[in-house]
């Protein structure tokens, strides 16, 4: 068996793949956080709970209604996006004139409520989600086996991230969005309905979290706590990347996932903490984050 730095290639490639998968979720979630933060100036603490609800939606659709993976990919984000719109209209919209920290407190409370409700209903143990038939099996890459579903997750999340980046950075709609981030009053004066744009942006961000949840369902156990610990890591990812750029959020997400995977190979004890350690180092060198600007 071939080795690199005394580590079998297969183990290394395996951990790299896991890192890439985790990175895909970090990227999608931090992207959603960045989009919401850009326009609403709110750090959406409920993001983890919304991701969890996306996974539960997929599981419920399959086990109760027999609706499969592909439809879930569409239904769960739309349904949760609508739920997000409801949250924005009834609660978040009352907070825009206040300090940003109230948004954090409110969404933290909401996350507790949602997580508690799901724990009451489904307990703390995870529910397995059956892998769709199409994804059974793996590609043989010669040096490792690549399970089809995992390959799909990496490719699909890349497509989702790049599409979002394209829409925001390269289309007319995106230009309105970026303009409203800079100066909502002026954009409103040009006849753009900014409040509706804010509402839809929040819905979109929540939908993105739900989409990540559906994609995570066959990989991780579907459990009420699946979002809570992930969201703290994603916060660190956001601090490292800085929320200035969409591309930065995507790059940081994938990059940190891979670094975390490599840490599991070379120094497993630190794999839980490596992202936080990187955050501390970045704060010391570039307080605004790798791609951020002070605001």
């Amino acid at each position, binding site marked *: 068996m071939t080795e690199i730095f005394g580590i079998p290639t297969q183990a290394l490639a395996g951990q790299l793949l896991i890192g890439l998968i985790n990175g895909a979720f970090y990227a999608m979630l931090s992207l959603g956080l960045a989009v919401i933060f850009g326009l609403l100036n709110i750090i959406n603490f409920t993001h983890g709970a919304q991701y969890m609800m996306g996974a539960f939606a997929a599981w419920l659709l399959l086990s109760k209604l027999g609706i499969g993976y592909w439809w879930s990919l569409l239904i769960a984000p739309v349904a949760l996006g609508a739920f997000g719109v409801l949250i924005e209209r009834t609660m978040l919209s009352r907070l825009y004139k206040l300090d940003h920290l*109230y948004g954090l*407190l409110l969404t933290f409370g909401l996350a507790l409520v949602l997580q508690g409700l799901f724990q009451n209903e489904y307990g703390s143990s995870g529910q397995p989600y059956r892998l769709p038939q199409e994804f059974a099996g793996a590609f043989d890459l010669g040096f490792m086996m690549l399970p089809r579903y995992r390959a799909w997750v990496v490719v699909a999340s890349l497509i989702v991230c790049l599409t979002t980046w394209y829409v925001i950075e390269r289309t007319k709609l995106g230009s309105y969005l970026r303009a409203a981030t800079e100066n909502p009053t002026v954009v409103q004066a040009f006849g753009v309905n900014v409040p509706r744009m804010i509402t839809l942006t929040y819905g979109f961000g929540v939908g993105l979290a739900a989409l990540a949840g559906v994609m995570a369902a066959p990989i991780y156990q579907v459990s009420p706590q699946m979002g809570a610990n992930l969201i703290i890591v994603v916060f660190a990812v956001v601090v490292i990347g800085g929320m200035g750029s969409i591309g930065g959020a995507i790059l940081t997400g994938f990059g940190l996932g891979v670094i975390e995977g490599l840490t599991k190979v070379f120094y497993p004890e630190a794999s839980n903490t490596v992202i*936080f350690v990187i955050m501390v180092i970045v704060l010391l060198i570039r307080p605004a984050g790798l791609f951020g600007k002070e605001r």
Partner: protein
Amino acid sequence: MDAPDPATPGPAAPAAAAPAPGIALRAADPSLRTFRIATLAMAIALAAAPFAGIYPVFLMKALCFALFACAFNLLLGYVGLLSFGHAMFFGTAGYVSAHAAKVWGLPPELAILAGAAASTLLGAVTGALAIRRQGIYFAMITLAIAQMIFFFYLQAPFTGGEDGIQSVPRGRMFGVLDLANALTMYYVVLAIFLAGFLAVRRIIHSPFGHVLKAIRENEPRAISLGYDADQYKLIAFVLSAALSGVAGGTKAIVFQLASLTDVQWQMSGEVVLMTLLGGMGTVFGPVVGAFTIISLEHYLADRGQWVTVITGAIFVICVLAFRRGIVGELAEWWAKRRA
């Protein structure tokens, strides 16, 4: 509560004007006379509470959290910094105090001091890092650092992992007070709480405290007046960490246990909630908030996850409708009635 004393240039009354610059709403600060009467009344009520049939262990738990919330409020209410990782100070002191009392055999007063010293040190390091960013970034950074500390304790051998440090001896305070006696323990905890509570009030009303409030209200202006804002923020952060450490160390001695519960992010959220519910930026608010939340948890203890749901719902209600908190709203109502 009284209307603001003209002698104290503290925060002025109403916060109705829409965009508040800092998170803290300017709640009416009681005058020294009102404060003394209220504190005395609180001390007497607490001293008499065990004889009114209230379980001392419950009271001690509430007092530890009340001190923790007061320490947290020093930062949130008076400097406007929202730390989402304060459990790291509470929990660190718990582990160090428990370890000192059990393994090193230190008497309880030194064990608690050792715990507080550890939190102070941790506060100096994390504070220096976190104040490099402001607002929500500050909250996210403290949360992330606290999570890192959590994983460290989860893996470190001396913490006992999931089991925690159990059967910590309470020992004898100053060699004479036998803390195995529940009532003796209670009065020691009450004394520690009152000392901490008065220390917070003293800090807030010192010249140093007024600079903190100036930074909360308008940081660029405070800087232009020649105050090194970062220095002040860091000192406030360290003081808050130290007092949180006293609370955490005391709790470990009382319950003879230090565990992961006290370093988890949920605990950081809980202290935010206590302060928010009681009234941030008010001296008595955190105490009221802590007693309310601890009572709630006590009565809902056998209801499983409903505690989480209700805690979250209180958060939402507080933010949407009740931003001054219990004490803040009462003070406002009282000020209006007298006007």
